[in-house]
């Protein structure tokens, strides 16, 4: 039997970066084939080439044994390739039906196309158990349903090969299992599935074969049944890594953060946060779990003083902040609270600035050896940055380098170094390892544990449940702007937390 997909010698360069270096990939027909690798390993580039979004510099592709030179997504769709992108390719203010037929309408007149599509889709969704309200606006649907729309969209175009790029990033553990059930149903119908992920657990749970990529190269092809997560992790990183828990019991101190009845409303009918009450102690990590977009980001921004709550009180040590008396980020910082924002490109660093400049942002007063508060000496900025870079192992250790030229992991370490430089008593940290390579993840996690052991109170927001579970002393689960439950580390398990994330109490 010919391979469903057979790529050989694929090369792709973006400027000086070689994203794909002579990649070979063979996928059996009707297989669920995983591709794992760290951020920047070249997985997304490879499948974007397969989908025709990028054109390879060299190399050949065969689809079901037929040599195939395609340049555009339209050609790929015609060849039976469908793709569910990591960031959904859906128009939020269109209905499900409009989104599904977009680009594949059939008739010039919209109503005719819609009638035909409605008919076809009802049988498709029955066949695969993919239920979605065709007339709902996509923007109103939860992400798990939006993902179904993407899958339906591909099936409506007769996809025989379905590529899913990091499909589980936005799903609860239960929704992830549902997705895998759908994939198995598709497999039974003969659809070949290519699953791109960085989560080893999912590779083990869902795939038949797995290919490992590292630094733009294909490192190994394995049968999933013959491998272990440890082996895969080692192949991904290129050296042995510890995947076990870093958590150990800590000495809790006094309560230093207290949040009471915090509320945030967008309009009269829409509550972004309601009844948020919790305390955090010195020497404790409170992990806030939840699917992205359930109020965690807003809560973090309120705690950092970036947005003011509609109602409620917050206190750090003995300083009280409430809706009528909101604090600005500078004030919060002066209380010994540091903040590592969720989106480092939007609010963590200024990309065109040098590392030295970014290392001082917000902490200019702490730069010693200047000419007073109004002036900053470049020498002392650089000296300070060099010291932080050494302590946090930022590579390359060059304070004059533009921040955009550092890898995600090193940018994050730089932000962390800056925020920890003032030895805060409270650390607010969002998505500490988003877009960060495994080596840096280990390092950042160790830093957080060390800070906690020194008596810092840490509030950790992350959509990576594994991260929350391996670091937190207590886990607070949020859904739809509410606290669904508070779980102690000792009794925490994925199933219960997953249910809480889905809003089931």
């Amino acid at each position, binding site marked *: 039997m010919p391979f469903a997909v057979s790529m050989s010698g694929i090369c792709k360069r973006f400027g000086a970066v070689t994203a794909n270096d002579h990649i070979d990939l063979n996928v059996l027909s009707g297989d669920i084939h995983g591709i794992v690798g760290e951020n920047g390993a070249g997985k997304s580039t490879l499948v974007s080439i397969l989908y025709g*979004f990028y054109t390879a510099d060299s190399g050949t592709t065969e689809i079901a044994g037929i040599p195939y030179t395609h340049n555009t*997504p339209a050609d790929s769709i015609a060849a039976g390739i469908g793709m569910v992108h990591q960031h959904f390719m859906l128009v*939020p203010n*269109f209905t499900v039906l409009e989104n599904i037929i*977009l*680009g594949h309408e059939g008739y010039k007149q*919209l109503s005719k*196309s819609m009638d035909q599509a409605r008919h076809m889709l009802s049988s498709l969704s029955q066949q695969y158990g993919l239920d979605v309200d065709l007339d709902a606006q996509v923007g109103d649907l939860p992400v798990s349903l939006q993902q179904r729309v993407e899958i339906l969209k591909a099936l409506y175009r007769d996809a025989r090969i379905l590529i899913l790029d990091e499909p589980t990033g936005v799903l609860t553990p239960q929704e992830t299992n549902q997705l895998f059930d759908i994939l198995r149903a598709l497999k039974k119908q003969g659809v070949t599935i290519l699953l791109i992920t960085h989560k080893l657990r999912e590779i083990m749970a869902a795939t038949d074969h797995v290919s490992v990529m590292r630094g733009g190269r294909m490192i190994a092809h394995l049968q999933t049944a013959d491998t272990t997560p440890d082996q895969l992790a080692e192949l991904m990183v290129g050296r042995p890594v510890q995947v076990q828990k870093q958590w150990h019991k800590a000495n809790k101190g006094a309560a230093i953060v207290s949040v009471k009845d915090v509320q945030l409303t967008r309009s009269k009918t829409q509550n972004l946060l309601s009844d948020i009450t919790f305390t955090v102690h010195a020497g404790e990590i409170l992990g806030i779990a939840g699917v992205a977009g359930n109020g965690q980001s807003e809560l973090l921004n309120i705690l950092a003083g970036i947005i003011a709550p509609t109602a409620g009180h917050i206190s750090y040590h003995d300083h009280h902040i409430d809706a009528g008396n909101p604090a600005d980020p500078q004030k919060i910082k002066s209380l010994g609270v540091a903040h590592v924002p969720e989106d480092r490109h939007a609010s963590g660093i200024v990309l065109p600035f040098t590392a030295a400049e970014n290392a001082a942002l917000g902490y200019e007063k702490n730069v010693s050896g200047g000419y007073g508060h109004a002036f900053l000496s470049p020498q002392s900025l650089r000296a300070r940055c060099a010291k932080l870079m050494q302590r946090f192992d930022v590579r390359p250790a060059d304070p004059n380098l533009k921040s955009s030229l550092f890898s995600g992991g090193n940018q994050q370490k730089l932000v962390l170094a800056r925020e920890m430089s003032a030895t805060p008593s409270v650390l607010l940290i969002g998505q500490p390892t988003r877009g960060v390579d495994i080596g840096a993840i280990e390092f950042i996690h160790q830093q957080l544990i060390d800070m906690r052991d020194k008596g810092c109170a840490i509030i950790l927001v992350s959509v990576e449940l594994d991260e929350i579970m391996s670091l937190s002393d207590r886990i607070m689960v949020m859904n739809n702007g509410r606290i669904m439950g508070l779980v102690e580390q000792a009794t925490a398990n994925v199933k219960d937390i997953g249910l809480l994330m889905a809003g089931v109490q």
Partner: protein
Amino acid sequence: MAELWLQFVLTIDATLRVATPLILCAMAGIFSERSGIIDISLEGKMLLSAFTAASVAALYGSPFLALGCAVIVSMLFSLLHGFACITHRGNQVISGLAINILASGLTVTVGIAIFAQGGQTPFLMSEQRFSAITLPFAETARHIPVFGTIYAEVISGHNLLVWIALLSVVITGYVLFRTTFGLRLRAVGEKPEAVDTAGISVTLMRYQAVLIAGFLCGIAGAYLSIAHGAGFVREMTAGKGYIALAAMIFGHWRPVPALLACLMFGFLEAIAARLQGVEVPFLGPMPTDLILVLPYVLTVILLAGFIGRAVPPRSIGQPYIKER
């Protein structure tokens, strides 16, 4: 009472005449902006096509030839706008502004070079223009109360381009919301990457949209100089392109609400014209300048926040670049 009624009916009639270029430009703006391309060059394209139409009509005498040339010139400048914004991913506001400045200078310069009348074109005879179409029985119907007056004054007596403007609203609505082309056009202004991954060229969609905008702007320009007016006068668009843009935003990028907004602006201008020289108790004659400034002031006030939250197409003003 009858006199007042007639005055009112005449004002409504004038409203339609004044609103015609606004309506065409607003529809042009809807096409362009729904596809994600900001078009402040409506003003410049209208001015250029007004000049082209008047010149061609003066030189060759055919209003239809003049209209055709006006449309072509306007579409050429749309292509220029598209080339800067779509192909070269330039700043859409700056490109539009450049076209407006170019139009303002070019029309006068070329006008002086050809006609040597200080930037104006010669006065056009009625056979060189689009003249009013008197509908059947208009004169007989005039004597029927209410409906007769409305038929004779408001409905009858407009030139072809007024009817085209009204038709353009219906067509815009149909194309945008009832056709495949419209679905793709709206999608490309909201989320171009969704269109690209669905196998449709974002570039081609956007070029088509700006060309349609150019087409409609061309008609609007021709209307000003060879239908409503009888020749080109320098800066004769006088900010109408911007008012149309305001009407489009006021109408939330939808054809019918935008039409109503255009009619409202047209009504204000018509009233201003009617009120000129009217004696107001205690104040004496109505100050003309004050009245003329009214539509512009209203534009500012409305745009400053009296229109509720106008949500523009999500990707407006952003050039489409594939990741990396």
